[in-house]
């Protein structure tokens, strides 16, 4: 009969109109600025650099400026300059560090390939999405200082993943220490031990416990 379908349709909309006042399934709005979205743990938006501690982010960056992410980044939005000197990392080991590490969020597509290819667990995905700016270059080009965020923050946004990473890093560190100890033992057994290097290599295991022992990062490299 003509009109049956029309009435059926009207019934559906009426059900939704009434339902929006009592049925949460029919009133799905999340009022954004007041209600922040519940982001799932896996959510990714723009990368950040993991540093071990919050009080000295530049000194404890995990990144060793190997530039793999820069090469693999599909839209080529990462720019890294290696440092000319070495600096002790969180473990006290002398490492090359990124003198410049910039990510252009105006280009980044948050594909997380940089995270996948990073062998040092140094770059991870952030969950920050509200970074709209009125100026493109001041607001959207993130440099090393803006990108560095402490491991605690990583634990906060990706707890499961961060624990896994920490466990893996700890295991690696233990293995490295073990190896270093064996090497040191072997060298000690040998008549002449290269004492200075052997002492430097194992380093201080828990850097976060004694951040003061780490020398502050050098002055930012001037433009060549």
């Amino acid at each position, binding site marked *: 009969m*003509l009109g049956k379908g*029309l009435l059926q349709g009207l019934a559906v909309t009426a059900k939704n*109109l009434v339902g929006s006042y009592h049925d949460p399934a029919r009133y799905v709005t999340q009022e954004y600025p007041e209600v922040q979205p519940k982001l799932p743990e896996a959510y990714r938006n723009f990368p950040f650099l993991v540093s071990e501690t919050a009080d000295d982010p530049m000194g404890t960056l995990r990144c060793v400026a190997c530039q793999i992410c820069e090469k693999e980044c599909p839209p080529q939005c990462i720019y890294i300059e290696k440092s000319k000197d070495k600096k002790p990392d969180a473990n006290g080991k002398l490492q090359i560090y990124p003198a410049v590490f910039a990510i252009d969020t105006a280009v980044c597509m948050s594909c997380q390939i940089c995270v996948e290819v990073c062998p040092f667990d140094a770059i991870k995905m952030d969950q920050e999405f509200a970074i709209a700016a009125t100026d493109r270059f001041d607001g959207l080009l993130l440099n090393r200082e803006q990108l560095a965020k402490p491991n605690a923050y990583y634990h906060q946004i990706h707890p499961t993943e961060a624990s896994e990473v920490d466990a893996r890093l700890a295991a690696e560190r233990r293995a490295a220490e073990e190896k270093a100890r064996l090497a040191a033992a072997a060298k000690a057994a040998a008549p002449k031990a290269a004492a200075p290097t052997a002492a430097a290599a194992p380093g201080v295991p828990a850097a976060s416990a004694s951040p003061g022992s780490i020398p502050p990062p050098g002055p930012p490299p001037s433009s060549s």
Partner: protein
Amino acid sequence: MILAAAPASPADAWLERAPVLLRDALTGWLPDALRPWVAALLSIATILGVFGLLFAYMTLAERKILGRIQNRPGPNRTGPFGLLQPFADAIKALTKEDIVPRAADQVLHFLAPVVLVALSLIGLAVIPFGRNLVAVEMEASVLYFFAAGAATELAIFMAGWASRNKYSLLAAMRALAQLISYEVPLLLSVVPVIVVAGSLSTTDIVAAQGGWAAGLWPHWHALTPWGFSAFAVFMVAALAESNRSPFDLPEAESELIAGHLTEYSGFKYALFFMAEYLGMAALSAMAVTLFLGGWQAPLAVLEFIPSYAWFGVKLLLLLLGFIWIRATFPRLRIDQLTRLSWKFLVPLALVNLINGGVWAATADWTGAAAVVRWFISALGVVVPFIFLARSLSAGYGPRTYRYASP
């Protein structure tokens, strides 16, 4: 002084008489010669004010109700509960740059929105908003109303043609087709009411619908079989006349961008918007007057509520219906639109004409005969509806589907 005793009839209640008393208080000190003029100006101002405000809040209500139907709140942060939203929109529209294409017909381009708003407004003059609340009483007020209303589509044509834009031109052609098709059923559906009420005056028609059967069943036209049919035809035609979904072909967004509005910006565009809502309100007010008993209360015991409040409630319910329909239905195609009119609404209205005539002729049937009268009238609605609906929906229908053999 006024509430000295309980009123003998609802017409004497203080609240009921408040608008009239207010008018008299405002004009009472004037010389007699001036008094009707000032009173008329006052009613114009009231209509403008009330319907201006109604327009503002109709837009908000539409946005909010549409929102609710679509499971969301709608505007809610401009002022408390979003109540200031229409004013923000008005300020923006007023201060927006006005763009006129150089190729456009400058005069018509400017005139179209003005004419449209004016024509949408003047129809309101003859609507009795309550007992004794009508701006202009005249003998042929129904005729006057439809004469004024018929010109609105012309204004849309003006807008579409003057813009010199291809989309606007298509919209103008559609508006004309719509005008020609839907004036006929609109008017035809009113004729039985005039026949039954025996008058062309809106106040008389409202008066004819007064009273209740057993105090429960009001004598509204829409509650009789022929009246219901006429009401339905009237409302469908009213939807088309006010270019509301599912008949919003002239400004069909998904096809013609904004149709005749494509070249309008700023305040002129706001005027079109206003005209659409005013036209919708005017036609709804006419439907209330003709079919829903005007300002009459639905139950005898509810008469203590002032008549204009009842009118307002009925008007708002009809407007809610407009919004509800808009939220639900897709749009018709232009050929289907005209076919719906010529092959369905017009024949239905014509048959209904006879039906209404029979009803008028059998007005003195009582008792068991009244039941027969009802039955005949119902038959006169249902049978043509079934036949016409069948021919209208020939070729369309639900289908069954097969599955591929693996």
